């Protein structure tokens, strides 16, 4: 009886500890399935899912440490646990609906997440969310950007600092990806192998 009680108590402690140790939103909590179906109707789509070993494998191919930019990206990526991006561009308005993103927006709520920036201009709506963590750190970054003909969702899981966010918004030698700059018109001649052009 004592053994059973001890086991139950240990299991309960383990469950509570694991719940506390993972304050950020996990990738599987994001309902990407709702978004993934949009690639069937989108003019172009980008689907990036990098987690765990695949992310570190990618970092290993980021060039030599002598390259300042590569070293900077490497150090940033080393802090990341997962990088998830879904970006879609549509021919005309109405090819996706707010209900496709609603489950995501519902997840990005306090206390886990806080909206740090929100801009609305006409039908263009961009929200930037951060998951606060202890010691002035950030447990995750999420961006949801929509306009009538494009939809972009970014989720970065990892323990980042405000300085890392500054790096993320800087250039770091990362080449320009045409047609995917938030809300800007798409460039049909974009040469991006990761894009699925329809």
């Amino acid at each position, binding site marked *: 009886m004592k053994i059973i009680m001890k086991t139950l108590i240990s299991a309960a402690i383990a469950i509570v500890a694991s719940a506390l140790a993972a304050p950020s939103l996990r990738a599987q909590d994001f309902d990407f399935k709702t978004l993934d179906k949009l690639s069937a109707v989108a003019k172009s789509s980008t689907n990036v899912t990098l987690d765990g070993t695949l992310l570190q494998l990618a970092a290993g191919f980021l060039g030599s440490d002598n390259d300042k930019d590569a070293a900077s990206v490497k150090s940033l990526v080393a802090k990341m646990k997962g990088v998830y991006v879904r970006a879609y561009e549509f021919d005309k308005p109405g090819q996706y609906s707010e209900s496709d993103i609603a489950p995501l927006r519902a997840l990005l709520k306090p206390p886990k997440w806080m909206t740090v920036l929100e801009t609305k201009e006409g039908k263009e709506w961009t929200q930037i969310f951060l998951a606060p963590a202890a010691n002035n750190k950030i447990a995750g970054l999420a961006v949801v950007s929509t306009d009538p003909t494009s939809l*972009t969702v970014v989720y970065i899981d990892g323990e980042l600092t405000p300085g890392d966010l500054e790096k993320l918004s800087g250039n770091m030698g990362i080449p320009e990806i045409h047609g995917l700059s938030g809300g800007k018109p798409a460039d049909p001649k974009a040469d991006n192998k990761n894009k699925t052009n329809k």
Partner: protein
Amino acid sequence: MNEETGRDLEQELRASLKREAAPPDFAAKLMAKVGAPLPFPKPKPQSWLRRPLTLALAATLAAMAIIPTVVVDHERRERARGLRAKQDLLTALAITRDQLQHAREKVRHTASIIQ
């Protein structure tokens, strides 16, 4: 040895070596003996597959031939996977950067309007 003695010997030899018909049951007796089991099992020649040393040698040679191919193939696939992941990562970071910069620009624009 005179000529007569020689003839006798020849006749004796002919008599003793003359062809005789086999007894009627000879064939049956011979077949019975052939079919009968031997007093001890005749050792069969061992197949090379059952010789441990030969088998070990063959396995070593096969491994030496296969392993480098497998390793090289695995490395090639890992490299391709890594390069694909790197490209995905750069795309993801570029999209993130563009989104953050775009939002920042909007804030700046709004702030300049207010001022």
